[in-house]
């Protein structure tokens, strides 16, 4: 009870500060200068239709690199944490009921579709809403589906790790290419920006988003795989 009361008091204390923030908030009538720069220059400079994508991949590319790294870290650490509890490779299936025919077939049919959707989402990131993260999440949901259909399924860790590693190193390398051949680290313009609105445009943005998508998908899959395999211990 004391705990609830104290938590309530603290929440109210914080709420008052937040209230001051909300009440003091003045909506902008015009874009501020940073946003204005993006609105006016993104298409011209980077050739990306989706400004958010341009910001995420190029202007604030360092953030995004960090963000991908966050996932990589999370996946690696989840692996570390759960490592002692994981049974030997191939020891799976014990105790899990065999999946039904319908489920297996369904998931086999659906998985490629989902994968293609995911790839579509991150390849078109510079044109339409969506991008590497969303696409990666969709890729991972394919893995999720496989797991749901067949809880005993074992992913080839080696494949996942290779995708993680290659796409990560490639991402950094692409960033360095920008440093070497364009305006700076993660500058997308070492490739031609192409025709505005085309699939193959916006310089390296599609390349980067593809790498991000692959990497994110691999990280999610790795987290999921590590979490499922803990089951063997009990």
């Amino acid at each position, binding site marked *: 009870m004391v705990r609830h009361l104290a938590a309530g008091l603290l929440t109210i204390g914080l709420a008052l500060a937040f209230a*001051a923030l909300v009440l003091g908030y003045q909506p902008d009538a015009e874009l501020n200068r940073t946003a204005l720069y993006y609105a006016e*220059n993104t298409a011209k400079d980077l050739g990306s239709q989706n400004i958010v994508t341009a910001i995420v991949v190029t202007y604030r590319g360092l953030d995004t690199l960090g963000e991908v790294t966050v996932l990589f870290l999370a996946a690696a650490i989840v692996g570390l944490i759960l490592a002692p509890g994981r049974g030997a490779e191939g020891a799976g299936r014990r105790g899990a009921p065999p999946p039904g025919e319908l489920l297996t077939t369904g998931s086999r049919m659906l998985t490629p579709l989902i994968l293609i959707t995911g790839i579509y989402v991150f390849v078109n990131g510079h044109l339409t809403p969506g991008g590497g993260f969303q696409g990666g999440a969709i890729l991972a949901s394919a893995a999720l589906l496989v797991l749901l259909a067949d809880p005993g399924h074992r992913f080839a860790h080696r494949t996942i790790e290779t995708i993680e590693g290659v796409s990560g190193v490639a991402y950094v390398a692409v960033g360095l290419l920008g440093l070497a051949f364009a305006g700076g680290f993660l500058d997308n313009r070492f490739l031609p920006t192409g025709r505005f609105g085309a699939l193959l445009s916006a310089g390296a943005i599609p390349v980067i988003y593809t790498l991000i998508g692959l990497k994110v998908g691999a990280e999610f899959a790795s987290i999921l795989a590590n979490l499922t395999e803990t089951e063997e211990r009990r």
Partner: protein
Amino acid sequence: MVSPLFILAIGLGAAFGVGLLDARSRGLAFAITLAGLAAMSAIGAEWLWAFVVDGVQPIMVMTAGAPPPFAINLRMGPAEAALVAIICLTGLLSAIQMREALLRLGRRAMAVLSIAVMALSGIVLTRDVFNLFVFFELVVIATGGLVLLSDDPRATAAGFKYLVVSQVASMLMLIGIVFVYHAGGSLNVDDLIGSPAVAAGGAAGLAFLLLMIALVLETKPFPANGWALDVYEAAHPGFGAIFSAASASAALYAVDKVVGVGGAAFLPMLTAIGLVTFVGANLLALSQTVDRRLLGYSSVAQVGLVLAVIGLRDLLGERYLMVAGGLLVAHAVAKAGLFWLSELVAGRDFAAWAALRRRPILIFAFATFVAMLAGLPPFPGFYAKWELTHALMAQGRPELVAAILVGALFEAGYLFRWFGRALKATPPEGVSDLPVSKVGVVVLTALGGWVLGEVWGAASPYGDVLGATPLLVALAFLALEPLSARIKNTLAIVVLVAAFASGWPHFDPLQLIFAAIVLLGGAVIFVASYAFADGRRTGFYPSAMLMYAGLAMLIVAKDTFGFFAAWEVLTIGSYFLILRGKQSEPHALSYVVFSLGGAFAILAGFALAAETTALFPIAGLKQVAAPFAPWVFVLLAVGFMTKTASIGLHIWLPGAHAEAETDVSPMVSGILLKAGLFGLFMLLMQMGRQSLYGVDLTLVLLWIGAASALLGNLMAVFQEDAKRLLAYSSIGQMGYAVFGLALMNHLGWLMALMFVINHYIYKSSLFLSVGGVYKRTGTREMYRMGGLITLMPLTFFAVLVGIVAMSGVPPLSGFGGRWIFYNAILDTPARLPMVVIFLSGPIAFLYLFRLIHTIFLGQLKDEHRRIREAPIWLIAPQMLYVAFLIGFALFPGLALRKVDAFISRFIPEHALNWDGLTITSAYGYWNPVSIMIVIVVIFVTLLAWLVFLNRRAQMVKQFNIVFAAERPYRPETTHFAWNFFAPYRRALGPLTEPYFERFWQAQTDALHGWAGFARRFYTGDGQVYAFQVVGFVVIVCWAAMGMTP
């Protein structure tokens, strides 16, 4: 030069790259990780070199081909380069320390380490607020992973608590960032600093406050830091080093970077939080017994201090970088070193650190780190402390100085307690191998600390402590450690004599007297050290020479900085010396705590006196004006009186002097105490009489001197331990000297100077005598001895001459002292203290008499029948002292004439009149030679008469007061001289009660009690920690909203 971006790219590349390796090739992965970290360190170091040596200008690194604030940019400047170098090097060395753990957990763990170091560098480099957040999150997550490297099963819970708290912080940070962006239209720090919207306060100010609090939370402010302590305690020490040195540096730099956006209004908040953290965490650390948790508390405290300094940066002006940098660098190097050192220690309590004693080089490293943390010279923290106190005093902020110094004293207290325990505990059984690489890392770090000390010294406008010749010579003795003790002893004597010879032409008479006592006197005491020069005597010579170096530097110091640095050096050296005694650990601790407390008083006094002047000559104390002058006087006097062990500040002395080694006791008693007198001399010469609230401060000093003389002597009377007796008597003797100085007349000063000389001679002599007896009988308890006169005649003779000289009876020099003294008293109007001081004269005789009576006369104990005279090396200096006492008694003019003339420059009135062998004062005359002749004639006559009377006297058989059939359960009760002055004790009991001991004990107990009680606030429950963090946020928010419009 390599773009700083490669620091990030290499870190990431290494992390992603090791994932491509086969899971089994861990060795290769480890090598890649090390190579990556080394490359990152090299880039940081290269930039640092470029900035410092080549004078390159800081650069901005753009990303994405767009200018800031539209794209993220990085900055590389001197501060960034230094911090990145520290972070990456810490990471590299920690990786070596964590080798086994990393290899066990495999590539993933190595990737996490690379990313952690990369992200910490990113925090330092980036100029974008949101990018800062991303890097912080990376650090948080990586921390969550690296905590798991520990073998400690409790680490998991600690990691979880850390994540919970980080969640709260990151939410606040995000909210703060987006509102700041909304107000300022930019995420770039440099861009925002110019933006008036944020600095204007209101909602934007509040948003900035949230951002600031979130950043401050990363510096683990007290009391919202229980989670951090748990991480420190449970994590692998290699990671502890990163968490303490690298993470904290990065977080502090982030605060420093961002606080400019909000403007000056937010600085007091940082100062307040930082100081509360510094004092609070240091206080709570007092009751810690687990080494790594202690290091955690200390880290929190040090980071708090830097936070406070960040809050004071406007006040510090251009010195800000050196101050904050000095504190930060000292903290980072020392803390990382200590964490790495803890890897080499198996147990977690302080005593387990005794294991380090198998490798003296590790003790050297340990001492280096402790000294760095405590802010002692010649390390960067010392310069930082000096500048900080001066800047604060100049700005009229003595309350901040007080808080900082109190916190620093707490810190020194637990650090030295730890160090002392480690050095004095018995090393654990079972020798485990210390891997060369790990020892190497620690030693390298310690050496790095010394290099940094030199860097800070070279950059300091006040002077380079490490450049001082005496200190270098003392340090050279460290390199000589492998030699045998005899060689080192001879070298030490040669060095001291040579130092005196080379300085001789430049000394004024006052300096000459002190230099003669310190250097020549020190050399004489070293003669006695030959008696103990078996083997290498590791640690003795560097410590002793450090003390002598400090004393030598003190005597010739021209400005307050040099004086203070010397003071600290001699304190450290003497601490190590005292600590060498068998049972001396608690006494050495109380010595160093009192000494540092006194040193802080001196520091505050100097800072107050200096006002805005950077380099303040000692002679400048004359010019200190009215409102400050008395306070300067009080602070300095208190500081000096901790060394003279004036009553109230004396409690460290008896134990420290009595428990010290035989040849160390005369050093710390005969020589070290004089440093305090030298300081008082200097103070009174420069500042003269001062009064505070209408009270004449010299009168206060006079009373303190009188009380010290009376009580010191009284307490000496009731001692059974011969060395303790001598130690207490030092308190009394120093009381006389302080009294003489405080008389503020010519003869008083002359007498004080005579005391300086006399006390050195007879106290050194007596300590050596008693030491010789101790060496032969194995005890210092006088009631266990008796009748040694026939077995140790030379020692007896030395003691006899010593006590005759000391008690001030004719014909020896003590009498001369008395004579001058009584003349001096007649010159002063202060009558009551005079009575007190008169009283203490006969009391001195009571205890001195016991030395002869109990030890040398009476019944010889059975177990002592076969003992021999003390070793020749102990006897030789005593005989020298005897000769000198007699010589000085006959021809006092040799030394005193010059001094008399020198004093006349300050106080010309009532100088003595030197006429051949006769000395005349306003009240009478004194001819030492004729007195000597008279006394000797009388003495010889009496002796002959007694011998004649007793020629047929029979030896008394067993002196036995044991009753029939009753065995005494306390053997001392059977000794004739035990509790000899019991009747006096009954009468004077109340005066000898250890009031001051009780007072200081009560203070310590109260502090420890508070610490023990208050730290229960850290319940270990992750949710309670979250409560504390949210509570902290709410309180700071409301306090800040109340303060700023």
